[in-house]
């Protein structure tokens, strides 16, 4: 049986090759045929999830909630010391020093990333700003968000911290962070579908062990590095359930 693996579309373009290398490594280790399908939009990926086409996924916390609670996916691992944080940036020449300087009807640029938008809007709350009194424009990716900040067509932009960190020095010299989240407990998670478990020659614990020990051999370690990870750490179902509970508190 051939399985399909995918990655949340908010991954850094620098790591595209890394996911192909990981897929090759995974196929060798599991002796299973796994096709890697990468998407550039959340919508198309969700359509395929709905259609039952996805068996393994490195999911953002937002999608992990739906996959675990509605579709019975099983949480296996998460990258160690890597949590999903958001940054609100302004044009480096602007007068804005804190979120409280932003006023109602200000213009905010976001990428189509629900988790970052949620955390970004939470960080605007102290300034009495919400979706009801700001103008939000959605852009294809974080580079476009940065471009809109640089040409001053928006007042502020939301970034996934990892995406901001990966931006060029030239872009970063023209934008300035005013607040960074330090949430720590919200993170991308590697999930497998119940169908994969039922049809694969691996038990759940075999799969956990495979990822948890990946850093122990040289090939596994270099593959992890190409993904930008140091190692996977075990993610129990309760860890994932708790993260989903926390996500639930952020969506009000």
């Amino acid at each position, binding site marked *: 049986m051939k399985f399909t693996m995918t990655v949340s579309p908010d991954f850094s373009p620098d790591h595209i090759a890394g996911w192909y290398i990981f897929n090759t490594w995974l196929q060798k280790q599991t002796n299973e045929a796994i096709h890697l399908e990468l998407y550039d939009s959340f919508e198309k990926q969700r359509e395929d999830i709905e259609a039952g086409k996805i068996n393994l996924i490195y999911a953002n916390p937002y999608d992990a909630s739906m996959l675990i609670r509605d579709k019975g996916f099983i949480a296996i691992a998460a990258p160690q010391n890597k949590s999903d944080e958001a940054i609100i940036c302004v044009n480096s020449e602007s007068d804005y020093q804190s979120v409280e300087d932003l006023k109602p009807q200000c213009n905010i640029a976001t990428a189509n990333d629900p988790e970052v938008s949620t955390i970004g809007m939470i960080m605007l709350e*102290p300034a009495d700003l919400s979706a009801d009194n700001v103008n939000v424009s959605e852009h294809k990716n974080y580079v476009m968000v940065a471009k809109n900040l640089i040409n001053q067509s928006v007042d502020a932009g939301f970034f996934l911290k990892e995406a901001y960190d990966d931006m060029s020095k030239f872009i970063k010299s023209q934008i300035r962070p005013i607040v*960074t989240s330090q949430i720590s407990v919200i993170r991308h998670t590697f999930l497998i579908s119940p169908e994969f478990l039922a049809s694969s020659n691996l038990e759940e614990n075999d799969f956990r062990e495979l990822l948890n020990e990946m850093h122990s051999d040289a090939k596994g370690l270099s593959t992890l590095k190409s993904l930008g990870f140091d190692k996977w750490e075990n993610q129990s179902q309760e860890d994932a359930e*708790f993260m989903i509970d926390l996500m639930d508190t*952020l969506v009000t």
Partner: protein
Amino acid sequence: MTGVKLNYYDGSSNERVVVDEEVPFPEGKLIVSRTDTKGNITHCNQAFIEMSGFQESELIGVPHHILRHPDMPAAAFKGLWDTINTKAKWSGYVKNLRKDGKFYWVYAVVVPNIRNGELVGFASVRRKPSRTKVNECTELYKTMLAEEKS
């Protein structure tokens, strides 16, 4: 600095120092804790420890009302418990009491932790509140407290 006797919803009481000084909520952070179904703390994150002023060992296993500020009306917490005991989400603005007697305001959201259909505890996440809402709640809670005492 004054010592105030606090009466909690579980019938217990405690004398606590109260200082009229606000500690600002840390930018970008979330204060996270979990409790069992009775409200005893089972987990708290570093931001919780830092803002409360207690050591982690002083927090685990004790009722969440260790943070209860005397300016908070009992009705606010009754509303919280009435809501979460029906397995629904509660949110509201809360003035919390630190170990050193100072206070900090939060916007709190509490969700029930349901596992296999059973309520096993609650998760609470606090974030930096809107100052406008804090000012509104300061007045509202004063009125509610006065009514409770009359």
